[in-house]
């Protein structure tokens, strides 16, 4: 099996743009918008100069926020890996994106809902309004695989592209399968990552229905369970360039860290199952972590279980929550956590990192990074 290394990272969130900004934000309080969606705080994406990574205005217009964030971060990752200008390489680079779906036209939704109340024939009214009011191109901003499509168009990554769905787990599994394909010799180089826009009432709605959202002023992830628990969604995108050690060496690229292992599973959630799952996953990875980057949500129960497991599997390790840097970015959470871990290894702060991903509702994952 071949070693898999990380040679490029592109990340954007409320902490700013780029890896350094995010490493700096490991200590401190994340930027929080408590007003726009009150009572729900969100961690808003930093303002970006889109032109720097998405040069054509026509491309920018074709995308909604989650796609623009993802496309931008993908461009940063390609820059960071030093492959942005290598058309031949990008033509055989494989792409795996972890994604949910795109945004809605909130004003149109509201008008239709108000109109449906008094419509003589609600079904026909719905047809008429949707036919008349939906922007045709909005569909392309909603389709899950169109972040990958936009990355192909804007950045020319055209080896092959696959989009995984399924909230937090999809981020872990995208990285897992990319790693396996490289390790087995099937492919040499991947662009892997995800994007999430939290500043959307329709996603807040889904998680509010389930009772998952934190509705008070920002508190760190680990302290939330004692006050009832809850997650704060964050707008973020993160892409990683993964490749075989040989491939990186052959093109003279310096790896930031090695991706030593990825383990994921889904437990039947009940009291104690998350703690048990993390023990099992970390045994699989065989690490001796000196740092933990946790994707913890701050939800009651699973957050304390993760803490308990970490005391056993990573004794003495410094523990950081990605949620306290960028918020909870769902499909993009695991890629972002891996980016932070790789950054700490690259700058010498750590040598063996454990990344965790305990999904808010299902799915457990763990990743191990070591010195390249």
């Amino acid at each position: 099996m071949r070693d898999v290394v990380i040679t490029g990272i592109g990340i954007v969130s409320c902490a700013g743009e780029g890896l350094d900004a995010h490493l700096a934000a490991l200590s401190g309080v994340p930027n929080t918008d408590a007003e726009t969606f009150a009572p729900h705080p969100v961690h808003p994406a930093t303002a970006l100069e889109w032109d720097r990574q998405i040069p054509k205005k026509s491309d920018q217009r074709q995308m909604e926020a989650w796609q623009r964030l993802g496309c931008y971060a993908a461009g940063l990752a390609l820059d960071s890996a030093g492959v942005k200008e290598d058309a031949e390489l990008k033509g055989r680079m494989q792409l795996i994106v972890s994604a949910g779906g795109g945004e809605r036209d909130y004003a149109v939704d509201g008008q239709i809902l108000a109109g449906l109340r008094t419509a003589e024939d609600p079904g026909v009214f719905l047809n008429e309004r949707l036919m008349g009011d939906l922007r045709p191109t909005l569909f392309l901003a909603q389709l899950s695989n169109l972040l990958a499509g936009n990355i192909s168009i804007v950045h020319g990554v055209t080896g092959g592209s696959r989009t995984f769905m399924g909230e937090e787990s999809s981020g872990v599994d995208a990285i897992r399968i990319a790693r396996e394909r490289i390790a087995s010799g099937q492919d040499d180089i991947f662009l892997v990552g995800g994007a999430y826009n939290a500043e959307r009432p329709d996603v807040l709605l889904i998680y509010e229905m389930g009772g998952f959202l934190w509705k008070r002023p920002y508190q760190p992830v680990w302290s939330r369970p004692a006050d009832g628990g809850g997650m704060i969604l964050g707008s973020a995108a993160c892409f990683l360039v993964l490749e075989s050690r040989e491939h990186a060496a052959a093109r003279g690229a310096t790896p930031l860290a090695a991706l030593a292992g990825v383990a994921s599973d889904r437990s039947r959630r009940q009291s104690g199952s998350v703690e048990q799952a993390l023990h099992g996953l970390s045994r699989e990875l065989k690490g001796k972590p000196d740092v933990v980057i946790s994707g913890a949500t701050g939800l009651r129960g699973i957050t304390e279980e993760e803490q308990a497991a970490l005391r056993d599997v990573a004794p003495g390790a410094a523990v950081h929550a990605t949620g306290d840097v960028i918020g909870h970015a769902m499909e993009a959470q695991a890629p972002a956590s891996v980016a932070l871990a790789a950054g700490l290894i690259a700058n010498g702060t750590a040598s063996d990192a454990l990344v965790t991903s305990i999904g808010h509702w299902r799915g457990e994952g763990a990743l191990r990074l070591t010195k390249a």
Partner: protein
Amino acid sequence: MALRDKQGRPLVAVTGMGVVTSLGQGKDDTWAALTAGRSGIHRINRFPTESLRTSIAGTIDFIDVEPFCAPMLSERLAVLAAEEAVGQSGLASGGFPGALFIAVPPVEMEWPQRQALAEASGQTGDVTYKDLLKAAATGRFKAWHDLFIFGTVADRVADRFGTKGSPISLSTACSSGATAIQLGVEAIRRGETDAALCIGTDGSVNPESLIRFSLLSALSTQNENPEGASKPFSKNRDGFVMGEGGAALVLENAEAAIARGAKILGYVLGCGEKGDNFHRTRSSPDGSPAIAAIRQALDDANLSPGEIDYINAHGTSTPENDKMEAMSCTAVFGERMGSLPISSNKSMIGHTLTAAGAVEAVMSLLTIATGRMPPTINYQVPDPAIPLDVVPNAARDGDVKYVLSNSFGFGGQNTCLVFGAEPKGA
């Protein structure tokens, strides 16, 4: 027979198949109808169609779920197809010994749920998402969180069949079903698993999804004669017809399958994939990505173009796809393309979108097993620009050893699979 391919990878056998389409439940019903040239396209009666440009589809109306919505129907179609496939394979139906790869339509909350939230909010004036959020906070709608997040269909299918590990939910638009199979093939070839359950499912014909495609001018508007609307490769084709379906394949390491005495239905011999960066909905005018995907699939299967006996086309019946597909196939197969049979299942079952690649994989394997090529129906007006042998209007018998199945999708997705009765040289 060697149980590894030319590259030394484990051969991937198919030991179970299941399918449900608008033509019926189970592969026997669907296959009988498909080879009889029967159409499953009909007038939509699931919802009112007044004011719509398209009022026909291949909906599956003989299965009911509660509450009726895309994720529930998609889950049900997946389970029905997988029950048939796992049953045929003889593997344990409650403890499937391998991974799940499932192509699912992107889901989101639908209008009945939005309406219920709006009503529960008590708002009598203008409605905003603030009102919906207020209703959501009551906790009365908790079950809808699970219903409308993206990983739920896979999670429930994984529960039902006891598949191993983290299930993969995926979308590559209209090539999703083929990608699910490709992921299973790769996992078996890497030696990670001896078995994979690969599923494509789509039960998402609802007003908004139909209107979205309609607004992109992608759908046929020939509503007068629903059975005649989907006419791939015909000169008067004017768009695709939405369909619903589910299909499942049990893939196994051939060595493990033989060791347990399983009946092998065929092999997945090759997979090819190539991204296209030309446009969000249109293919590169020169067809180069589709050509690359076909060639890669043939190479992966260790076959030359001359060895393919039949092509199961993507064949959507849109002016653009069929032209691009014909051109790409001609580039790969050369002069032979004029006489190489290529037919489109979509002429009868419509475009089952996320499920299509998996449904058509099952039909490709049945073509190999029975030596019968399903027709392209509604082929009355040939398109002189794309002179193909589309197996017009009536099924045809022939010796079919190797089949190429094409899947292309929005977002520059091109995925091609090669199936065979036996690996080459066996």
